[in-house]
């Protein structure tokens, strides 16, 4: 059988993922030496691939990786067809709706304009959340520095992931509503979940710190 391929997100979850892999007994030295390499093998044969966080489900769903570590936020936004095997309980953060700290423009916008304008990377989350709460929203997709949007009048508020809230504070924003809590998850390809059942169950237990 092919070596086990693990997809690890670059970005906020990388450090926690590597720490967890190390605690689970993987030799993670290749991560320190990797530099800009995107794929490398551990001495035990395990292949690690590193991708942007939002691409992890794509690789796993297609079977390019057997398992992956990814934030729940990405799973809710992307709705991939993969097994969500374990809550790894690190990388905890909240998906929130945030607006300017001095005055919340939301109800004013809804009353006067009938709709509130939201800037976000998470368009599906924002659309579904505002639809669910019975409010009309225009969702604007931005790819980074979401906090900027309300400051320059692109949007009334933002939907974004918040860990400590420091970025919000520094930009004069405050979380008004919590949408869901997120943490890192272990996901598995549909076929790998069957064909490598014992291997993946053991991996899930090791990464969760159960054994």
């Amino acid at each position, binding site marked *: *059988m*092919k070596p086990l391929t693990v997809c690890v997100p670059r970005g906020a979850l990388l450090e926690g993922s590597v720490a967890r892999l190390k605690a689970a007994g993987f030799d993670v030295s290749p991560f320190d030496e990797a530099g800009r390499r995107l794929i490398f093998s551990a001495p035990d044969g395990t292949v690690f691939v590193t991708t942007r966080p939002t691409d992890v489900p794509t690789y796993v*769903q*297609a*079977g*390019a990786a057997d398992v992956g570590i990814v934030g729940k936020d990405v799973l809710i936004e992307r709705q991939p*067809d*993969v*097994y*969500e*095997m*374990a*809550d790894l309980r690190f990388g905890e953060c909240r998906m929130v709706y945030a607006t300017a700290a001095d005055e919340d423009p939301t109800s004013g916008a809804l009353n006067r304009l009938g709709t509130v304008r939201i800037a976000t990377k998470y368009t599906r989350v924002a659309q579904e959340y505002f639809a669910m709460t019975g409010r009309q929203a225009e969702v604007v997709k931005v790819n980074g520095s979401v906090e900027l949007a309300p400051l320059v009048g692109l949007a009334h508020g933002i939907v974004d992931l918040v860990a400590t809230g420091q970025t919000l504070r520094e930009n004069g924003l405050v979380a008004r509503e919590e949408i869901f809590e997120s943490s890192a*998850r272990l996901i598995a*390809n*549909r*076929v*790998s979940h*069957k*064909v*490598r*059942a*014992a291997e993946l*169950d053991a991996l899930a237990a090791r990464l969760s710190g159960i054994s």
Partner: protein
Amino acid sequence: MTDLRPEPPGLPAGARDSLPTESEELGAIETGLRGAFAAYGYREVATPVLEYADVLETAIDQQLGDVYRLFDDAGRVMVLRPDITVPVSRLIATRMSDHSGPIRVFYFGRAFRPPPPGTPGASEVRQAGAELVGASGPAADAELIALLHRSLSAAGIGDLTIAIGDISLTEAILDGIGVPREIRTRLGRALAARNLVEWQEIAAAVNVSGPMRELLYELPAQRGGREVLSKVCQIAPGAEPACRDVSQLLTLLEQYGIAEDVMLDVGIARDWPYYSGVVLEAHSSNVGAPLAVGGRYDRLAERFGTPRPAVGCAIDLDVLNRALTLQGTNGDREASGVVVVDGLDHHLAAAESLRARGVPIVCLPSGQSDPAEFAARDGWRYVVEPDAQGFRVLDTRDGSSKTVSSLEDVVA
């Protein structure tokens, strides 16, 4: 950038063409599958691409969701069939209701699903499937699973895993543990979404303790051999009848000689509600999607007025083709055939007699430049050009050439 070329003619999202090599490979797959279906006495049927939406929706007891819809002259909503199992069930219930059964049929066809926005999914899925109608119990399930195993093996899959679960077994276990109805609905939804984290969160709220609690917690992860069955049946009271059926199914699969490639998987879920007994998925480690899915749906045919138990499966031919390509068995076709320069105008009788012997003859006009390149591109073996002595023959396989006096002598 200025580009004055006309925009290339596009295709709707998810639609795609098949070129000759792919078509030949699919043809070879189809030949393998047909041989397996025939060996079990299954006979071919076909249903139309267009069906009435309300007929299918009544049958599956839910809205069709994302399908291609159009209207007939009277304004009635039609759909491009999103699957073939339900139409074949309709066909058997309405056209073959006087058949004493069991009825064994297979089909080849396309099912149509609009791909979700932003995903590379195909809008047409090429499928082959088999249905065994009018027979119930582990023996019928075993035949269908054996047929699926033989079909995929005949198509060339070398590392097959067929995962089987049983809806009635899972229900019996949940009954035995005493999981309340409303929690079961939520568990079912979590399972259909393959969300084992959510399953465990819901399970944690159920008021049981000890081994039963652990079993409930780990139920969707229970996959393996017979030991899984004895484990769950020891713990969950009242699950014995369902366990006996699955155990008998495993015994029959051992007699078919395929038990090694079968794994029990209590957590297989189907998102269509018409499955009632065994459910199955076939996997190859080379591709990340199931080669085939299927199961038992004893309550489907009655929706069309002829109650009859049924078990069936549908093979995704595109996934199967991808698995064979990645496995490396979809090699290049062995070069054969004869390219005849000036064959369009002359040597017609000789060409016909070769064709009658089964040798492909590909004719080119006289004066065609570089016929060898033409032959290499499409995988033809011999290139024949008429000359003063008769015909000059190039064998592209080894580069040798010879001269023959008549066309029939090209292939000795």
